[in-house]
């Protein structure tokens, strides 16, 4: 494995102001993403897992700059030559995505794309499949109309929508959920990005169709050398799609490790609870359940001590609620945990 990561995220933060009243100034912030750091190697795929409201989707949107980070840096590796062509300044071979603006930001988007969760809402119902898939080429001004048509046809073929001409000039509502998600993949990959953020791309698909889409994403990643940030709430899916998994809780990464390592030897009490709640499709398996209190809250001005303290079954009073939120530390073999008690 290369030691030069493709993406490096350092201390990423996103706070959303909570507005109250008409004229009052805002003092309250939702700490949606709070000091998150990780890196992704070329051709590697990292799973970002957590319950709804944990900040995983916000993290994804920050990485493609649909949102602007409150603090932190997002480094993306780029070739000198490309960077010069696109008018981007490099720092040790990396561009800081968090600071990009205007033209440079637009050019950056040739390298990074996103696949969205909802196959029904992520396509403009008034555009044809051709228009949808060709949109990135069109806005980036790549290729002539003829070339775009050719490229769209190729891409549809790649994602298994054959023959392409029978799909190109249909509308999204004429396609099934699985087919649409294939179109979404074609759109994301049409300008040859090296990094794709997939936000729960299969969570709304039926089981029998889902596996096909998962397979397709892996095949294309191998073929085109793509790295994924795979956002999901489903650990079982993450197991099949990701090399590494990071578990998020209330805006923080609490644990990160190689996939099998994390599933079989979870260290953080939250990860343990989460894993024990996942239903297993095997009636003979009787698992040990770790109960935790309460439910996920919204991180509005959270305390500075461990975020999980209030629900933690093993928390130590006087330690966990006194010290700062524990840092994400390597406990050996690239297994990172943020817990005082591990």
């Amino acid at each position, binding site marked *: 494995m290369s030691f030069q990561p493709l993406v490096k995220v350092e201390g990423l933060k996103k706070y959303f102001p909570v507005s109250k009243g008409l004229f009052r100034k805002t003092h309250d912030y939702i700490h949606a993403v709070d000091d998150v750091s990780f890196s992704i190697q070329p051709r590697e795929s990292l799973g970002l897992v957590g*319950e*709804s409201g944990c900040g995983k989707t916000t993290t994804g949107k920050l990485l493609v700059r649909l949102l602007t980070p409150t603090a932190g840096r997002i480094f993306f590796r780029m070739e000198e030559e490309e960077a010069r062509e696109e008018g981007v300044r490099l720092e040790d071979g990396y561009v800081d995505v968090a600071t990009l603006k205007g033209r440079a930001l637009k050019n950056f988007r040739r390298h990074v794309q996103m696949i969205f969760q909802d196959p029904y809402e992520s396509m403009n119902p008034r555009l044809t499949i051709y228009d949808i898939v060709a949109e990135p080429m069109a806005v980036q001004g790549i290729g002539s109309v003829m070339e775009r048509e050719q490229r769209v046809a190729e891409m549809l073929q790649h994602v298994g929508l054959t023959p392409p001409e029978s799909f190109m000039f249909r509308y999204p509502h004429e396609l*099934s*959920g*699985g*087919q649409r998600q294939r179109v979404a993949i074609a759109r994301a990959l049409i300008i040859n990005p090296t990094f794709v953020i997939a936000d729960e791309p299969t969570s709304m698909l*039926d*089981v*029998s*169709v*889902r*596996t*096909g889409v*998962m*397979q397709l994403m892996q095949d294309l990643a191998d073929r085109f050398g793509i790295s994924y940030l795979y956002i999901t*709430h489903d*650990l*079982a*899916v993450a*197991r*099949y799609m990701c090399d590494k998994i990071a578990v998020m809780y209330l805006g923080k990464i609490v644990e990160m490790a190689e996939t*099998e390592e994390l*599933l079989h030897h979870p260290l953080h009490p939250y990860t343990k*609870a*989460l*894993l024990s*709640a*996942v*239903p*297993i*499709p*095997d*009636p*003979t*398996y009787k*698992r040990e*359940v770790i109960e*935790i209190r309460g*439910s*996920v809250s919204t991180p509005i001005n959270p305390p500075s001590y461990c975020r999980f303290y209030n629900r933690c079954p093993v928390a130590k009073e006087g330690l966990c609620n006194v010290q700062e939120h524990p840092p994400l530390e390597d406990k050996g073999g690239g297994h990172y945990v943020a817990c005082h008690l591990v």
Partner: protein
Amino acid sequence: MREPVLSVEHLTMHYSTRKGDVHAVDDVSFELHPGEVLGVVGESGSGKSSVAFTLMRLLPENAHIKGGHVWMNGVDLLTLPEDEMRRYRWKRIAMIFQAAMNTLNPVYKVGDQIIEAMETHGVAYGEAARKRVAELFEMVGLDPALMDRYPHEYSGGMRQRAIIAMALSCDPDVLIADEPTTALDVIVQHRILKNLLQLQKRLDMAMIYITHDIAVVAEVSTRIAVMYAGRLVEIGSTEDIFLRPKHRYTEALLQAFPSIHGEKKTLLTIPGELPNLLNPPRGCRFHPRCAFATEICKEREPEYRTFNPGHLAACWHPVGEENA
């Protein structure tokens, strides 16, 4: 085994649409016994929810029941006059809906909506009804004080609990749960499932649990019915379905489903798309996607075969009979 509390025979229901008839439920039969949880698994468009709504006779205008019977205590619910059917709803068969967010009317207090059900069926009135709501709330793990709040003040998990409380309010014989935890996070889902199963055992209700999630159905049900494209393709005990599946679709589904437990198996892909029910495939409806399909699968609908007592499947080439 006790007498079935509900028995469904050859149920067939179509929706008429602009483009033609949608064969939503086709010749579905099963029995539901007291105290058991029957899991109904299927993908979207398999007809699993349509079965539930047909049992309750809560169908939209364009739905037509083409045939079959639903027996409950010797009465065929499908032929009952609407006014009498109304008395069966909630009192005998209650239902938990998928979209907890929208099942409660936003302009009435949650408690009042539960009391309304009880007063309609003469279960309890006034103060007595309020007391019962408080008990129900405690049973499902909600603070009774919440009964005087409006639905928008509840979180998703709380609403689902309130709906469970509402479903139990008239002591139904049968509870239909239609994907009750689909919108919830795993930890909350796990807790609500546990709570629901405890209550089901305590009240000795029969339950039909409808879901697309094979993993959930493995945990909750004693028996499982697998549906595909409007037809019931296989039914049997949970062990039979998971360990000795007979229908090729059941087998493919199990092999396509990822798990975090055990060895990392290779997931097998089922090729193709779900069939269009406007014009379902002839013969076995799974044949266009089935690796084992032969000529007969395209021509003739398979009959149900009994493989084990209570384990039936409709497949021409069941698992384990490769050469047949």
